[in-house]
């Protein structure tokens, strides 16, 4: 009975990873990565290590997801190509 659960959980992890890597839209990819972190926490609990599960749920899903969403928002701020005549690092303080 638990073997079915294990196979299902690992298959879910692989499926979410494939979906996150085959996704062209960045936001969807990052959200699938966060969901992957939560499923990873379930896998750690199944493997008998609850402290690693807590660290994964707090850090792996929470902090990393927030960092990636921040980076996606930063990369979306400018849609036009960068003007070549202005020097680099002109808005380095934002």
């Amino acid at each position, binding site marked *: 009975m638990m073997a079915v659960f294990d196979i299902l959980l690992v298959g879910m992890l692989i499926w979410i*990873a494939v979906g996150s890597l085959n996704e062209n839209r960045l936001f969807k990819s*990052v959200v699938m990565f966060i969901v992957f972190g939560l499923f990873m926490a379930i896998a750690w609990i199944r493997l008998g*290590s609850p402290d690693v599960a807590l*660290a994964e749920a707090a850090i792996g899903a929470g902090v990393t997801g927030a960092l990636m969403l921040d980076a996606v928002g930063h990369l979306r701020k400018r849609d036009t190509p960068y003007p070549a005549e202005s020097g*680099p690092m002109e808005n380095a303080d934002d």
Partner: protein
Amino acid sequence: MSNYLVYVAGGALLYALGTYGLLARRHLIHKVISANFMGSGVFLLLIGLGNRAEGGPDPVPQAMVLTGIVVTVALTALGLAIAKRYYTATGLTNLDDEPSGGEGR
């Protein structure tokens, strides 16, 4: 824990998937996500192999993986900060010479 091999095989498969994404995806954030998948595969393999003995898991790989998760977060933060500065300096989101079409919308 008798079916630890499922998790070991899943970790190896996740490492392979992360390697594929790191090499095949062009967008920098996709590369960072793929590196995170590689790390998760290694952690699954370690803790899965730590569960071979009957009578509870081995605590030593758990401590290693707990340290590794923290190191992975620091590495991800560094990579994303470098990607943001790279975008500020050049306006590109990949390592090619032209903006990528179709990715990152």
